[in-house]
């Protein structure tokens, strides 16, 4: 039997002017199990709270009802008050007689009557309240960053800086990501490698950071604070700890016809390779699809020339098991495949390139040594056409993306500007639909391209590119001058839309995080929680969440790190005790609840039950992980047997409220 205390607040005159607080208190005092009632001017004041504490002590109250303002206002206050008096904070219920009564009604009799009913409903509920303990779970003080691009690098560095261990899992042989392929960065035109590679070195030298390069996440279990991750380290056929990165093997390898993916296939590499000079870790990797030794067993040159004895043709994929408190997704982006854009002749002419390929063609470490040459005949191009929005901003019915890829306007301005600066004899045309330059110093940058560098910006989409006699005929309309242009170009550069990395979708499934229809990860709140996923403990960094440029990526990466540090700084996580709970005796194991859970908090176990006649039956039953459950209650309605209930908002509590109101 509960011993309930009722406290009616006047809220100055806010409540008392329209509600007869004395009458409310007295009437509610007559309700069953109510052993104490009181009304006071400001229940939330220290004086008011002391009244509650004293009453709890004096009358041995087991539950209290406060008739006051909205629980969104002071529920937490009164819960703390109860706790101070030694009462479980979840034995407090609030009847909202201010926002939902005194403030919206004018007639005192009506408002008083309603206040009494609301009080009754709260009393009915508190009758059925049970003390709840917020579950505690320890936090593993280690973070996992998936993806070693600039987003992952920045997040890892910031987390490590706060003193926590970080592991980076990168699927390529080196970290660095897309930024390592870029030549210069807008709007300052500083060299990308010059600002990125020191960070990569920082990562390599940081004792708190461990890099799993050439590795992938294979499985994720667990929940916030306690993720259990399996990392697959792909066989690179080189012992990472022995390789000194001297490069002798890569020079001597006889297999030289391997398309160089770092240069986007614009040149070739050897079957054993180090992607680029500043790679981290600087370790060679053998491409098993091309290595003669691995394919036919005949060669072994690299093994012979390796002074460190690092080559191991028998290396196998290896699975590493590791615990983490937080996981950061930084899987980045890729330009879309342009196979469906044949009107731009991408597959017909090597001189039609994507912007990323153009970056490699202008990069000093690229296939042309930084001299801008056409891929087809290695001649200097004199007319270059840039086409914007290839595959972006489409209706979604075709093969393109509905969103704006955001970075193309700026990098195209950069390309155009750099080309004109280095090769003033080149005519540069940029065909645009809109030029979008929101960002610090961005529009100024674009205007400089037009005004100082004489780049021809033409509003209108290119309709057709056709290779003719070693040239590229570009047909486009100039919408502002209302004429059709035919430009004989030497090089056409397509600003391909960017899309999330294909590894993101299976990863989202493993992490039980949500994605939008474009496979970008969905943030917990588009405005207020932009770096967290809806799944606790999973954070988002960089382009996996949406198209971003480098400054934005880095600031999001640091924001993400701040959130991770905030989580890892805690020794224990205190959960929300109002979570779902499954009654094993009633559970059918039918999986209905699991399907509606947005957090993947429900799993199933086979459990033995003692049955009549000393028999034992094994049944599949649902198990809610209270650390993951957020307490929405979707499962409680999906459950046909009523085995699933929500603490703090149980079926019987809500029905008691219904009964009290409808009486």
């Amino acid at each position: 039997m509960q011993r309930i205390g009722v406290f009616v607040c006047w809220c100055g005159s806010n409540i008392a002017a329209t509600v007869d607080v004395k009458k409310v208190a007295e009437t509610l005092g007559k309700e069953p199990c109510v052993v104490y009632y009181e009304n006071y001017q400001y229940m939330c004041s220290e004086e008011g709270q002391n009244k509650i504490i004293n009453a709890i002590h004096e009358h041995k109250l087991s539950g209290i009802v406060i008739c006051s303002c909205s629980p969104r206002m002071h529920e937490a206050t009164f819960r703390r008050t109860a706790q101070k008096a030694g009462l479980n904070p979840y034995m407090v219920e609030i009847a909202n007689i201010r926002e939902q009564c005194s403030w919206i009604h004018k007639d005192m009799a009506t408002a008083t009557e309603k206040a009494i009913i609301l009080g009754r409903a709260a009393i009915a509920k508190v009758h059925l309240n049970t003390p709840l303990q917020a579950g505690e779970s320890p936090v593993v003080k280690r973070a996992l960053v998936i993806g070693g691009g600039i987003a992952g690098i920045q997040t890892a560095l910031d987390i490590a800086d706060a003193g926590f261990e970080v592991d980076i899992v990168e699927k390529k042989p080196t970290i660095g990501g897309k930024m390592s392929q870029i030549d210069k960065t807008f709007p300052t035109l500083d060299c990308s490698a010059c600002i990125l590679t020191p960070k990569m070195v920082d990562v390599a030298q940081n004792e708190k950071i461990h890099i799993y390069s050439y590795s992938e996440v294979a499985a994720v279990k667990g929940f916030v604070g306690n993720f259990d991750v399996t990392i697959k380290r792909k066989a690179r056929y080189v012992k990472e700890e022995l390789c000194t990165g001297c490069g002798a093997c890569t020079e001597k390898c006889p297999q030289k016809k391997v398309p160089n993916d770092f240069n986007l296939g614009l040149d070739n590499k050897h079957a054993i390779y180090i992607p680029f000079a500043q790679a981290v870790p600087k370790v060679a990797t053998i491409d098993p699809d091309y290595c003669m030794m691995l394919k036919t067993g005949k060669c072994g040159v690299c093994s012979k020339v390796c002074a460190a004895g690092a080559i191991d043709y028998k290396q196998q994929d290896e699975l590493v098991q590791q615990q983490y408190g937080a996981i950061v997704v930084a899987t980045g982006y890729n330009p879309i495949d342009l196979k469906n854009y044949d009107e731009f002749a991408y597959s017909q002419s090597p001189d039609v390139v994507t912007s990323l390929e153009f970056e490699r063609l202008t990069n000093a470490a690229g296939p042309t040594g930084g001299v801008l040459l056409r891929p087809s005949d290695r001649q200097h191009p004199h007319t270059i056409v840039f086409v914007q929005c290839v595959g972006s901003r489409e209706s979604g019915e075709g093969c393109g993306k509905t969103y704006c890829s955001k970075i193309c306007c700026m990098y195209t301005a950069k390309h155009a500007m750099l080309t004109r600066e280095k090769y003033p004899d080149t005519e540069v045309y940029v065909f645009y639909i809109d030029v979008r330059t929101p960002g610090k110093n961005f529009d100024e940058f674009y205007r400089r391209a037009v005004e100082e560098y004489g780049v021809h910006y033409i509003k209108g989409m290119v309709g057709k590119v056709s290779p003719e006699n070693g040239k590229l005929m570009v047909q486009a309309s100039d919408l502002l001058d209302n004429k059709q242009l035919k430009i004989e170009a030497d090089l056409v550069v397509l600003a391909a839309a960017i899309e999330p990395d294909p590894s993101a979708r299976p990863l989202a499934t493993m992490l039980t995080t949500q994605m939008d229809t474009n496979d970008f990860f969905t943030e917990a709140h588009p405005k207020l929680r932009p770096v967290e996923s809806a799944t606790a403990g999973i954070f988002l960094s960089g382009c996996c969440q949406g198209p971003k440029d480098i400054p934005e990526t880095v600031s999001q990466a640091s924001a993400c790190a701040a959130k991770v540090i905030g989580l890892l700084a805690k020794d224990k996580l205190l959960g929300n005790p109002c979570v779902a709970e499954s009654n094993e005796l009633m559970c059918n194991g039918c999986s209905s609840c699991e399907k509606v859970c947005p957090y993947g908090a429900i799993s199933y176990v086979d459990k033995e039950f003692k049955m009549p006649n000393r028999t034992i039956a094994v049944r599949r039953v649902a198990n809610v992980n209270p650390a993951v459950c957020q307490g929405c209650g979707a499962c409680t309605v999906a459950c046909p047997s009523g085995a699933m209930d929500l603490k703090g908002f149980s079926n019987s509590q809500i029905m008691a409220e219904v009964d009290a109101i409808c009486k």
Partner: protein
Amino acid sequence: MQEVIKQKAIELLSSGKADRVLGWKEGEFFYDITPAVFTDVKEIEEKFVYNAFCGPNFSKYLVAESRKDGKIAVFLKPCDTYSFQQLLKEHRILRDKVYAVGIPCDGMVDIEKIRQKKIKGITGVTEAGEVLQIDTIYGKKEVAKKDVLAERCENCKSKKHVVYDELIGEEGDVLDSHRFDLVEKIEAMSEEERFAFWQNELSRCIRCNACRNVCPACTCEKCVFDNPASGIDQKAAADSFEEKMFHIIRAFHVAGRCTDCGECSRVCPQNIPLHLLNRKFIKDINEFYGEYQAGADMETRAPLTDYQTDDCEPSVILTKGDQ
């Protein structure tokens, strides 16, 4: 057909492929067929039947039977396979403990419909193709089988077996049925007419729970109506509301999981057309969220555990005219 199935039952048992066989045998009356678990060949030879009264759907029995030691063989009519697969999908039946034999069905007969034809004192019914020969204490009579089919068989939705280990006879197809005709007719009534219709039907309910007990979707370890903690436990209907509440909640609990097997209406001693409530949900689900047949496969998400961001709003009910 009875002999073929009987021989199969004997073969399964004697070859050791199954330790028990779930089949039909005669109950109190020849038309009152009940499910039975056979464990020896002799019993099968004597008692096993398969005829036009073998309505009972065995799927639900497998929830308990598949948890016992050894393997159980079961005979499933096309519509039974849907219930069977739905229960597999809900992890209620352990698949590897069951040997499922799909058997053909050309409709089950409703004894009440024969009686409605003023045929009294029935002592036996034999099938002769399209015609039923009926022995009565007043002599022999004949009726066309199609005239006395159970409602659910008149509106048979599928002759296809969706899951089995072995199939006797040929595979059938999913049929175009007129099963929603009556639902549509009720929808077309006025609100007051609908209320009167259901008041008349549901007020006959004696809360015997037969519909729940036979329903292959109602396999809860503990039914909410038997659970004092659920707040809706009732042993008997005290007034007209509780009948409605019972049937609404029951229909809602099986919505999206009901395969429309029609067992609820078959067993109702008061002849309440309970299947109409389930069909109403099925029809709504099909209209609002796209065609869905519970038990048709193992993969598709049940409509109530799924959503589309552009689903219709509940206010669609208001704009559906007077339904």
